[in-house]
């Protein structure tokens, strides 16, 4: 049974729909990537699920956690899920910690909330958590303020705070985007080690396909508020079938390739206020037909495994990539 079950999740801001019915399941202990470019709705999906969107957002659909509905549930019920069952960390670590409170106090706050620890017990547990996420000399640095830590360390502190509630699922929203390359590598390493140690599930939201493939078992590709393709990491990367997924792969320069010309996806992401009637990608898609312009392809299970929303998927997926690498 899945731990989180999202069905037909829709979000609109001021009447502009940005999420057009997301279906997603997260099994216990599983690591799922959510990939897409800015504005595709990958973060909004989880902010909506946890009720973290501003009040003007209209959220419809269903998010069930172990069979209990979160959308429309009383505030206290949603608050009881946040941090305890599902924890979330964000893109900009330095501004995601409260600047006026000591970091120890912020971690202890979670420990009090979720484990009922107070005083010395909470403090020693907070130090243990800081050790666990790799903050050197935690015992002396627990009383420092966030601005006295680097960006990478702030992300570690946020991870420590997320772990305080022993969550079943950690949603990491672009956790490494704001960090330097070598620090990104550290954080990815930390996240995947922690997952091995705790057995928690993880949702890894990122535009960095490489990072997603490194830490996830499965990934969903989003475009303009919809999931367009979903598959195991191996299959998705070896044989991307949606033209957008393939476009994304081809657009990224390869460190091992030479100075070959890149293959960009033509055009730009559509304005959510002026989405085409049919497939949102049709205007940028080389394979698009009249059908694509008028009808919305549904996300359907495929014979070869995975889910796909495309009328004209790539048939021989591996061939072109191999040819490119050659």
């Amino acid at each position, binding site marked *: 049974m899945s731990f989180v079950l999202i069905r037909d999740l829709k979000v609109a801001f001021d009447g502009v729909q940005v999420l057009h019915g997301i279906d997603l399941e997260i099994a216990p202990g599983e690591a799922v990537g959510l990939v897409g470019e800015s504005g595709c709705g990958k973060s909004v999906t989880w902010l909506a699920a946890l009720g*973290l969107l501003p009040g003007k957002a209209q959220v419809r659909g269903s998010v069930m956690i172990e069979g209990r509905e979160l959308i429309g549930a009383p505030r206290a019920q949603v608050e009881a899920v946040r941090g305890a069952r599902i924890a979330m960390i964000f893109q900009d670590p330095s501004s995601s*910690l*409260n*600047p006026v409170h000591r970091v120890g106090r912020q971690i202890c706050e979670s420990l009090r909330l979720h484990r009922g620890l107070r005083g010395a017990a909470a403090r020693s547990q907070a130090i243990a958590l800081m050790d666990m996420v790799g903050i050197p000399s935690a015992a002396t*640095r627990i*009383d420092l303020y966030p601005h*006295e830590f680097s960006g990478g360390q702030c992300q570690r502190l946020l991870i420590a705070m997320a772990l305080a509630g022993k969550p079943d699922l950690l949603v990491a929203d672009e956790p490494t985007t704001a960090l330097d390359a070598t620090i990104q590598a550290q954080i990815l390493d930390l996240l995947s080690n922690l997952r091995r140690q705790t057995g928690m599930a993880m949702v890894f939201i990122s535009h960095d396909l490489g990072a997603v493939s490194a830490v996830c078992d499965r990934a969903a590709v989003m475009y303009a508020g919809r999931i367009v393709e979903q598959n195991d990491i191996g299959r998705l990367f070896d044989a991307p079938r949606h033209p957008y997924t393939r476009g994304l792969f081809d657009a990224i320069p390869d460190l091992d390739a030479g100075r070959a010309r890149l293959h960009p996806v033509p055009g730009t992401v559509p304005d959510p206020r002026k989405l085409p009637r049919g497939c949102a990608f049709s205007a940028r898609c080389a394979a698009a037909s009249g059908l694509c312009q008028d009808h919305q392809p549904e996300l359907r299970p495929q014979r070869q495994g995975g889910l796909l929303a495309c009328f004209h998927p790539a048939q021989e997926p591996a061939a072109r990539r191999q040819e490119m690498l050659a």
Partner: protein
Amino acid sequence: MPRFLLTKFARAMLTILLVMSFAFIVLRLSGDPAQVLLGPDAPQDAVDAFRARWGLNDPLWQQYLAYLRQLAAFDFGVSMRDHSPALQLVMDRVPATLALTVPALMLKICIGIPAGVYAALHRESVADRGVIMLSIFGFTIPSFVLGLVLVLVFAVKLDWLPAGGQDGWHYAILPIATMSIGGIGILARFSRSAMIEVLGQPYIRTAMAKGLPWRDVVWKHALPNAAVPIVTLVGFMVGALIAGAVVVESIFSWPGIGRLIVVSVANRDLAVVQCILLVIAASMVMANLLVDFAYGALDPRLRGAAPGR
């Protein structure tokens, strides 16, 4: 720390010195006290005697140096009118002014800040719009208009409250109301926008994602951050405790500093005017120092060197 305190203190003293020098020069250039105090028909020898008595015949720079020497000895001069010590005159009036400004400040803080915060937490609601409208009303109406309207309504028409004077606590109600309404509006507006700004910060989302109840998110995470800009504004208001009542005291014939300054300026009673300005400048500078320390207490990023780094 002592060095930090010393620089702060030295800077404050310099500010006061600049204010006093400016006031000294402007006052001397803007009219002859002898003419004003003795009247236009005064005999010439009386005027001459007066000028000699107060050193007004010396060159300006000599007068200025003499004044500085006096200041350094904590001698604030005597009133040209009745020869009583200027500082004494001023200090006698301070309690009356504070009797208006302190309660008014309390009202501003106790009504303005909560109203602004409430509006920010209930954005776009009826209460929010109400707060915005009332605060615009509050700070667009000048206090001399508001004061007169209040007098007209509550003193003249309804006859509930006295129109002026100082003879019991109820005489203070209308002046305090006149003074606080504008400040409440400004503070509400300001607190609202400070709070809205803070509520949009990533660390608020983190606090929510942690599972903290909304009440704790607001009280423990949003308010301490919103306090920083609000304290700046309150600091200004504290600085204006002594000087901020000139208009209102005049409307309600309240015997405070404001009235004293009006009378003294009209009479060119230089020592008294200068002494008032000194007290006002000192109170502003003190308030500024307090704000600086409050910053440090509220926001660790604004403290000097970070310990343990």
